[in-house]
Structure formats: structure tokens, C-alpha cells
């Protein structure tokens, strides 16, 4: 008779990698479907994106009209408009805001259910978040870009490399954003309540990722420091700069590489923090 052990039966014991991929895909699908059920919220959110698109676009175009040379931060009017409108769509894909699930589960003690699963919470939540991002890519990018294109002249890419580089950059932005949000949520392991850090993140990430104004409008030393020393420009500014071809191809590729380095660092950090937290975790609730 076989000996009993406590290991979790794999979905497909002979093909462990295939099974992991299947699990990851299933979790991604669940993330996608979860957001697909919030149809009203999708429409309401899109409306708000469009209002803010008009607000930011008009203000930045007025800045361009008043700036010496008409190109503040090295952007012309078309590039600024594209930056704003694609940014309003991409904001939802990258999803820098509004994810407090993990913190809630830690506070209520539900996190225990995640820890007994055979998949690491970081991996499981990453899969679900990629599903969420895919849903946002399908539903939330088109409408603001379409409205923007109807009302303002937008810039279109002129180099073929821009399109694949933009796709990679968006994926890295989603991963980087997820890892940052995971870390912010994970403060709840130590603080019990992560509302403060979440609020801090919401405000800081918006402005430092380039949502309020393109970061190139800041003094050069500040822009460079932000880019090198923080993962934040990689969440929005880098993919947008890539799309509107703000820089030469080599520099564009360099910025995406920097983005990749930061995504890996943040993801590794999330894994490390999760392991540390598991060692000290006192489950709440009961």
C-alpha cells in the first residue's frame, strides 16, 4: 500500500510545468471574468476617464500654447493629446488604483485560505491581476482613445519597432504595478489596516507615474532621479513615452529595459515580503 503524505496532488502529476501553466491560466480567466461582471462600473469608469481626458488635454494644450517653442518637456501638441487620452485608457490596464483585496483579506483573516493553497499568493494574485488587465485592455482603452481621436489630432507611431516595444512596455507596467500594489497591501501584515498606506500609494503613484502631468515637465535632475531610483515612471510614463516616440529608438529600448529591471526587483521584493510575513503571521478573525 502507498504511504500517505501531506503533499497536494498536482493537477497533472506527470507534467508539472503544463499543470502550472494551466493553473495560472485558470486564475487569469477568473480574474477576467470577475471584472467582466461589473458592467455598470466599466461604463461609469469609462465616462469618468473621458471627462478627465478632456480636462487634462485642454489644460496641457493651453500649456503648450503658452510655452516657449510650443513644446513643453519636448512634446508637441499631438504628442501631449495622445499622452493624455491613451493614458486615460492605460490607467485602468495598469490599474494603479483601487486594489485593496489583499489588505482586506489580511485584516479579516481570510488570507489563511490563500496560504493553504498549493500556489504562492504572489503568483495567484499576479495571475488574477493579469486577467483583470486583459479585461481592461479589451474594454477600457478603446473608448477614451476613440473620443480623443474624434476631438483632437493625435500622434500615430512612425517606427515599426514602436508597436512591439509598446506591448512589452505595457506588460511590464502591469507587472510592476501589481508588485507595488502587493507590497502596499502587504503592510497590513504588520499594521492590520492598510488604508493609510493605500491612500499614500494612490496619491503618490498617480503623480509620480505621470498621470497628472508628463514627468518631463519637471526639472531634468528630478525626472532622471525618479526614473532610475523608483519604479513609478515605469507604470505609465514609460509606455506612453514609447508610444508617442518621445525619444530615439535606442533610448526607448533603454527605458523599457529599466522598466523590466524594476518590475523584476519589485516582484522579487513582493515574494520576499510574503515569506517574511508568513513567518510572523497571526491570523485575524475567528
Amino acid at each position: 500500500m502507498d504511504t500517505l503524505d501531506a503533499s497536494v496532488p498536482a493537477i497533472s502529476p506527470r507534467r508539472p510545468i503544463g499543470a502550472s501553466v494551466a493553473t495560472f491560466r485558470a486564475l487569469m480567466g477568473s480574474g477576467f471574468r470577475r471584472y467582466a461582471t461589473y458592467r455598470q462600473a466599466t461604463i461609469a469608469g469609462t465616462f469618468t476617464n473621458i471627462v478627465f481626458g478632456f480636462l487634462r488635454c485642454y489644460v496641457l494644450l493651453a500649456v503648450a500654447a503658452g510655452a516657449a517653442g510650443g513644446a513643453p518637456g519636448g512634446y508637441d501638441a499631438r504628442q501631449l493629446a495622445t499622452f493624455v487620452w491613451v493614458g486615460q485608457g492605460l490607467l485602468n490596464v495598469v490599474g494603479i488604483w483601487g486594489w485593496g483585496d489583499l489588505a482586506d483579506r489580511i485584516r479579516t483573516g481570510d488570507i489563511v485560505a490563500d496560504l493553504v493553497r498549493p500556489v504562492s499568493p504572489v503568483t495567484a494574485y499576479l495571475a488574477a491581476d493579469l486577467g483583470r488587465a486583459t479585461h481592461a485592455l479589451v474594454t477600457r482603452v478603446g473608448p477614451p482613445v476613440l473620443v480623443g481621436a474624434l476631438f483632437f489630432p493625435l500622434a500615430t507611431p512612425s517606427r515599426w519597432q514602436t508597436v512591439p516595444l509598446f506591448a512589452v512596455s505595457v506588460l511590464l507596467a502591469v507587472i510592476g504595478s501589481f508588485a507595488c500594489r502587493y507590497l502596499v497591501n502587504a503592510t497590513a501584515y504588520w499594521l492590520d489596516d492598510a488604508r493609510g498606506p493605500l491612500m499614500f500609494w494612490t496619491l503618490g503613484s498617480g503623480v509620480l507615474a505621470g498621470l497628472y502631468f508628463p514627468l518631463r515637465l519637471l526639472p531634468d535632475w528630478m525626472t532622471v532621479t525618479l526614473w532610475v531610483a523608483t519604479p513609478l515612471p515605469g507604470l505609465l510614463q514609460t509606455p506612453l513615452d514609447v508610444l508617442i516616440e518621445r525619444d530615439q529608438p535606442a533610448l526607448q529600448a533603454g527605458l523599457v529595459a529599466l522598466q523590466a529591471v524594476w518590475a523584476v526587483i519589485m516582484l522579487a521584493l513582493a515574494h520576499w515580503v510574503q515569506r517574511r510575513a508568513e513567518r510572523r503571521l497571526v491570523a485575524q478573525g475567528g
Partner: protein
Amino acid sequence: MGELRAYAALFGGRLRSATAYRTSFAVEMVTNAAGTLIDVVTVFVLYHAAASVGGFTLDEALMMTGITAFAFVLADLTVGNIDQLETYVRTGRLDAVLVRPLAVLPQLILADLPLRKLMRLAVGTGVLGLALARNDVDWTPARALLLVTAPISGAVFFGAIFVLSAASAFWWIDSGKLGHGFTYGGRDFTSYPITVYGSWFRTLFAYGLGFGFVSYQPALTLLGRADPLGLPSWAGYLSPLIALVVSAVAAVVWRLGVRHYRSTGS
């Protein structure tokens, strides 16, 4: 008297729950103040890139930003958390609020009073102070009065917008983000001279919805500048009237909404 005690008890409960997690609360409080600061920093950054935006200098624009900052912060602090109504409606928790012998709106406001936003008020006042210091205002009794009425009316106006956008949840549960376009969007709209906006967009927001009278018109009157868009200078004094009208609309819509409310039954 009994009613007041009940409201005081609600507020006390809110105070205790807000301060239960001290570290988190402290971070929230400081961050909130920083949030208002970021809006103002954005104005400085944009004017750093261009000396004149929409025909106005930084100092002149600060007058609009200042009135808006103070008015919005005061409204957000007092009634801003009404946007939680969405959650009350979705979960059916509004039932508990409705069965109590108190008015619905004050209950919701007091039960969710966002004390963490208290420090924003200091920032808002600071911005308005800075705007006054950097502009050479030719003080008359009328202008002094305007300095008091404009920010207060602005706060009433934003408060009514908060209530209106929250009330949409009575008909459309997941409407939270929809309201943000008018509350936070309205704040952004009124932080800049309205000359920067395209004509139909400006007409809709400034004159159709009344946002132009919150800070742009009063700031012009305070600065003694003629409106490049052609409204006479007494338009700066209209904000209390506009606030009153929007509040009346908000009160009616709120009442209709409460009547329309059906519990979730779960």
C-alpha cells in the same frame, strides 16, 4: 435634544473607529494633506513650463486654485464621504439607516465623517492665503465680503455636487466612478482659468453646470480683471445664488432617490 445626542453618539463612534488603528490613521491624515498639495504642485509645474496659460499668470491662476482648494476641501471633509452610499445601497445596509428615527443624509454624513481629511483644510487655507499674498488686491468692502462668500458658497456648491453624484447610486448601483467626473473633475475644472477649455466643454461645465462661478468669476472680481469671455464683473458675486440653486436640486434628487430605494433582500 434627543436627536442631537443621537447624532453626537454617531460622531463619537466614528471618532473611535477612525483612531483604532493609529499608525494607519496617522499615515492617512498626512497623506490626505499631501493630496491637496499635489493638486497645487501640479499648477506650479504647469506654469513652470509656460509663463502664461489661457492668458493668465501663475499668481492670477493661484487665486482660482486657492478658492477651489478651500471650497473643495471643506465640502469633501463634511459631506465627501457620502460617496459611500453606493456600498450602503449594494449591501442593503441602508435599511438600518432608514429605520432609525433620524434623517438619512445627516446620519450617513456623521457615520462616515472622514476625520483623516482634517489636515487638508489647513492646506486649502494656506493656498488661498498664498494667492492673496501674491496678488495685489484693491480691497473694497464688497471684495472683502466676496472673499468670505466665494469659498463658502463654493463649498456648498461642491457639497451639493457630492450629494447629487452619490444619489445616482439609488438608480444605478455601480455609479461611483461616474460621480467622480463631476466632483473631482469639477475640482480640476475650477483649479484653472476656464479660458483654457474648448468652447462647448467650457459652456457645459462653466455655465451649464455652474462650475464657472465657483472660482473663476469670483477670482476675476477679486483681481479686478475684466472677463475675457465677456461676463460682467458682478458675475463674481453670483456664487451664493448658484450654490443655492444646485443645493435645492440636490435636495429634491436625494428625496426622490430615498423614495426610489429598494432593499437588496439578501
